[in-house]
């Protein structure tokens, strides 16, 4: 892959604007960004660990440690993560193959369908799975005539795999598009057949992506509280235990202990992904295909890919289609007479508060996350900044730490005024929800901004500085206009993320501030599935409107078409090397 030396260049390219030091505005911004991470991510997490080790927590440790059910819960959690990681990665990989390497019709539709789980709350799949395949589910009842209960590992694997499979899909689509076709052609030339090429060339090169997709899905799935609560059944996992400890017993010590058990593996896996895999992956992703990849021609492969993709798509369509059905029927899965009552409940009735509150708070959080993320990304990409590696890692902690833990941590950390009253008590306020949204969506902004900034390279900035501009002027006149489209789309996705997230805010909501995802879980828990379905539908609609806005404003183009950034990148792919 021609990309191999590329990393060195990119690293060097963004070497140095002569010192961020002495640039007042940036100094301040950096301070604010660091404070945000330290105060609202690191400190709450530490607070949980401290709480779990306090007197009360220690006795909980002792009790839980010796209980066989705790061991089982932990083992269940790891098993769930591993199975979902494997299944989700595999499905994502196959779907990406179909998207990039086949000429099947409807690949655009495939793309849209596969990405639906991203714009819907993760546990809405679980909800639909219950109503379709549960003990009295439509399909189990009417088609298979069985009373089989899908709650448990099997149900969770199906629901969560579908929810997080898009992570792997997007990852692999990027990698496969960047794949240098010459490599495969060379292998073909040497006499390798399809399967042999797959085994010896394609898969080994995708290996870092496979590993990192697996790990990311692993971490996300063990933190998925909504699905675990709805669909876990007898199959205990840490996420549902934490939920029960807080909501059922309001025992924060117990919840802290469970949280630490969940935090350990999550951070470990995330660190592995971050420090080791991401680097390897970068090498492969940046390579630019020298020629379009030839579609797969092997007939058995095509049959397999086509059949598999059709099945997955049908399943996704069924899952989400059934939510739509639920939203417009009297009692989902039982009384199918059509009605608008459920949707009216969300848009006009008692449910409207949640809709309004969620949108308002997500709208407040989005620009904060955008600004902070941009500043952090800018700092991370400066070579001259000491400790940027640490900041880089700290900036992704917001997603590395499971959402429930962020939520409980915020609760523990800010249940009284801190910093001598500088930060008031936040428990029960809208601010704490905004904070949770911000923390969770900022890492995404950072990644997008870092990517966009790295593509710029530093020559543009150096040219500007060399012509007399300060760092701030350079940022405003050169950097910002060039990364604006990327930033805009990352803001939309931040908004989507805030709208659909459950675990970080589930413990933070109050009657004054209601959040839709929590309402959905609540309604489903109470058995009012039709209301839950209506909420889900409206939620997806709101997010789709936002994404549609993005599509309209950027004309469906990816990051840089409008700005010429794409061309710039292309030029950078073939520089005559000067010095390493």
């Amino acid at each position, binding site marked *: 892959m021609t990309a191999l030396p590329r990393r060195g260049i990119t690293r060097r390219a963004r070497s140095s604007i002569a010192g961020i030091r002495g640039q007042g505005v940036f100094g301040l911004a950096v301070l604010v960004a660091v404070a945000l991470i330290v105060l609202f991510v690191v400190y709450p997490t530490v607070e949980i660990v401290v709480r779990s080790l306090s007197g009360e927590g220690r006795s909980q440790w002792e009790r839980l440690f010796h209980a066989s059910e705790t061991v089982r819960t932990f083992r269940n959690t790891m098993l769930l993560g591993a199975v979902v990681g494997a299944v989700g990665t595999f499905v994502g990989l196959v779907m990406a193959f179909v998207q990039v390497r086949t000429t099947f019709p409807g690949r655009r539709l495939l793309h849209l369908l596969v990405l639906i789980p991203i714009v819907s709350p993760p546990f809405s799949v679980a909800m639909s799975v219950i109503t379709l395949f549960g003990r009295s589910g439509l399909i189990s009842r009417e088609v298979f005539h069985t009373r089989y209960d899908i709650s448990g590992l099997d149900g969770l694997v199906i629901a969560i795999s579908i929810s997080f499979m898009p992570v792997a899909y997007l990852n692999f689509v990027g990698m496969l598009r960047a794949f240098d076709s010459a490599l495969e052609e060379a292998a073909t030339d040497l006499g390798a057949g399809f399967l042999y090429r797959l085994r010896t060339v394609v898969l080994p090169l995708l290996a870092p992506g496979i590993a990192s997709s697996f790990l990311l899905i692993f971490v996300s799935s063990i933190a998925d509280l909504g699905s675990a609560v709805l669909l876990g059944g007898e199959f205990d996992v840490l996420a549902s235990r934490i939920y029960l400890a807080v909501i059922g017993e309001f025992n924060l010590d117990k919840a802290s202990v469970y949280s630490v058990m969940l935090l350990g593996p999550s951070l470990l896996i995330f660190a592995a992904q971050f420090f080791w895999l991401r680097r390897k992956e970068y090498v492969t992703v940046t390579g630019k295909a020298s020629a379009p990849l030839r579609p797969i021609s092997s007939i058995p492969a095509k049959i397999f890919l086509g059949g598999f993709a059709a099945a997955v798509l049908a399943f996704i369509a069924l899952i989400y289609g059934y939510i739509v059905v639920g939203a417009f029927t009297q009692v989902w899965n039982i009384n199918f007479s059509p009605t608008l009552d459920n949707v009216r409940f969300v848009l006009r009735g008692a449910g409207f508060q949640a809709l309004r509150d969620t949108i308002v708070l997500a709208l407040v959080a989005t620009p904060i996350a955008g600004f902070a993320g941009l500043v952090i990304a800018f700092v991370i990409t400066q070579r001259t900044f000491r400790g940027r590696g640490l900041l880089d890692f700290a900036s992704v902690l917001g997603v590395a730490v499971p959402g429930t833990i962020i939520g409980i941590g915020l609760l523990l950390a800010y249940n009284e005024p801190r910093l001598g009253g500088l930060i008031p008590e936040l428990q029960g306020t809208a601010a704490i929800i905004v904070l949770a949204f911000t923390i969770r969506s900022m890492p995404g902004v950072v990644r997008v901004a870092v990517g966009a900034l790295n593509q710029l390279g530093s020559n543009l900035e150096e040219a500007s*500085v060399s012509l007399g501009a300060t760092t701030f002027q350079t940022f405003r006149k050169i950097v910002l206009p060039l990364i604006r489209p990327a930033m805009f789309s990352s803001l939309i996705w931040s908004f989507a993320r805030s709208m659909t997230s459950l675990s970080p805010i589930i413990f933070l909501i109050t009657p004054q501030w209601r959040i839709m995802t929590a309402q959905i879980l609540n309604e489903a828990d109470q058995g009012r599935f039709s209301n839950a379905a209506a909420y889900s539908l409206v939620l997806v609609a709101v997010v789709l409107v936002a994404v549609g806005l993005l599509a309209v404003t950027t004309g469906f183009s990816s990051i840089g078409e409008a700005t010429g950034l794409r061309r710039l990148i292309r030029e950078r792919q073939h520089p005559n090397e000067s010095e390493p």
Partner: protein
Amino acid sequence: MTASNPSANATDAGASHPAVVVRLDGVQKVFDSSRGRHEALRSIDLEIYDGEFLTILGPSGCGKTTLLRVLAGFETPTRGEVILDGRRCTDMPANKRPMAMVFQNYALFPHLNVFDNIAYGLRLAKVRRAEIAERVEVVLSIMDLVGLGKRLPGQLSGGQQQRVALARSVIVRPRVLLFDEPLSNLDARLRDQMRGELRRVQQQLGVTSVYVTHDQTEAMAMSDRIVVMSNGRLEQVGTPVEVYRRPVSLFVADFIGKAVVLDCSIVRRGVGEATLSLFGEQLTVSDPGADGEPLTAVVRPEDLSVVGVGADPELAQRSDPAVIRLDGWLRSTEFLGSESRLRVELTDGTLLDAVAAHHAAADPELLPRIGDRVRVEIPRHAVRAVIDSHDVCE
């Protein structure tokens, strides 16, 4: 646009050189990274004169780009000073330095049109709108870019982009113009053309220029002076003719042009002189190694003449004290149009590469043929002693 700077503040009055614009004093640059310590520049002393075109030439990784970036202010030296017009500016940030850089990939701002790209530095300097328009028009016409002001960089050819990059830098009237391999992204034909154009603009404006390249032809063709770098050190500083005809080290001799290394031993070394013994003859040449560094002898391949013994019966008897004669066989020839390369195996088995230029009076058809007995003649004055430095960096 009249940017010619009268050398008003000469720092070394009395010297025959023009005023010194930039002086580097023991500049050292060390990069510390997780992979270890890399000394990119090892104590560089250099003076850059007003109005000159100075080229920094060297292979990849020799530190030439680092040196340029230290000048620009993008890197701060680990040790040593950068003095600009007599004032210390080692820590002066890049945007405060009266220097402008032209980048290898042009670094044109892709979202700004040609006019806005060129006007960028003037706007930062708060130049009046009318004056900006006027100055940009002048530069556009100097650079042969008239009528392209509204285009985006993406709509320009490589050569045009190159000219816009140059225009953007010269318009701010920098004290020193810095070039980082600006021609290496162009194809060969355009490169030749731009080389001339760049030099023309530089001379027209009289702006002091520092130009980094790894292409020796470029360096020879454009420069007033060449700085040859290797492994973080200055190997030699001099005019193109000096570095070509009087290389001080084997590295320089080999990097600029081709060098034929001759087997020799040192008989005696005096002050600035050394007596060498080669092919059984003694030869006194000037000694570039002030500190007794190991020496070796080189000649340029075009200084060797190769004559077929059979073609000229009198040759065997002819003797000339100014030339060293060696017998051998012609082993291979390459005809390259304007010249031929000949490889001769001497009677003691040594291989020598010579170049025979072809012009109207030297018909390539009359060259000896492969396998012929030949005589190689080396003019004594063409033999040079050079420092035998083996630390050619990669």
